[in-house]
């Protein structure tokens, strides 16, 4: 894992930057809920896009990898969606 982190330091740093920026913007958008939803969706879209792009450029991009990123992205959105529907956020 350390080797992986070192080799793809740029990718992981940019990924973290995207996610931290998404979190910060979501927090700053309070109390505009619609804007928060847009920011979260854009952040998760970038997460999926960045992962796929990284594999396209640095590894072999297979349908499995694409599906993995998309499913994880969808799972993240689903968790937030149901948390909202349940009145938690």
């Amino acid at each position, binding site marked *: 894992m350390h080797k992986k982190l070192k080799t793809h330091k740029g990718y992981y740093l940019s990924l973290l930057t995207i996610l931290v920026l998404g979190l910060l913007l979501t927090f700053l958008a*309070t*109390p505009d809920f619609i804007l928060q939803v847009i920011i979260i969706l854009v952040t*998760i879209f970038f997460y999926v896009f960045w992962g796929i792009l990284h594999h396209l450029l640095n590894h072999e991009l297979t349908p499995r*990898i694409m599906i993995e990123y998309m499913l*994880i992205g969808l799972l993240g959105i689903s*968790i937030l969606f149901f948390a*909202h529907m349940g009145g938690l956020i």
Partner: protein
Amino acid sequence: MSYLRTNFPSVLGTFTDISIQQLLLLTNEKRQENGLPSLTINDNLSQAALSKASDMLGKDYWAHNSPDGTPPWVFIRGAGYNYIYAGENLARGFNNAPDVINAWMASEAHRKNMLSSNYQNVGFAVSTGKLSGEDTVLVVEFLGSTTYAPPAVAKEPEKPATVAVVPGSPATVAKIDTETLGAQKADSSKPKVIVANSLPQVKPLVNSQTLSLVSIRLIMFMFILAFILDMMIVERKKVIRFVGHNLDHLFLFSLVLLIIIILARGVII
């Protein structure tokens, strides 16, 4: 959950630890800290706050003005409180009174409302119900006075006989003109000071909102833990995998968890 809620309301339900007495006590504490006189509970303002909360839940909106444009002042007047100054603070999704007061104090406009020397009375309503299909707890605070505050009288110029609402503020303040002051003063000669009353409430054993929040956080922690364990096992056993970008997913799930934690706090307007 809905089965439990319907058939065993004493086991699972939405309840809040926010009491009107506590809200009043904390509001007055903040005012005293800032050298301001305490507010007294006014039953008309409390009634107005209750009407506003019921209106929001009934018409399913979360705003100072109702969808048909009814401002908060209509509720205050409707309850028979002839204000000179009036203000409204709203909060939803909080579980205790200190959090509500702290959130209002942290917001410049709400803080100004709470710490205004113009107000002498306050009325609170704490209502639970569904807003946009979600179980929620609404807190309505109406502040008002039926007489001019002494320092404000000297500075206030005479204005035409219209109700003016300060726009653009999350917690708006209304003020009526000096021409109607005489009538207002006569009304306010006997200010009603009553002890805050609250309806007896059946407190369920488990708060459904807290239970849901704890459950979802637990599930998120389990996801994160599963990713970490999977990463460790794959690393130790040198398992070859074609997919499995656990570190990436760990970052994303941490973001989701943080969003849930941050947005789970109540909202004020």
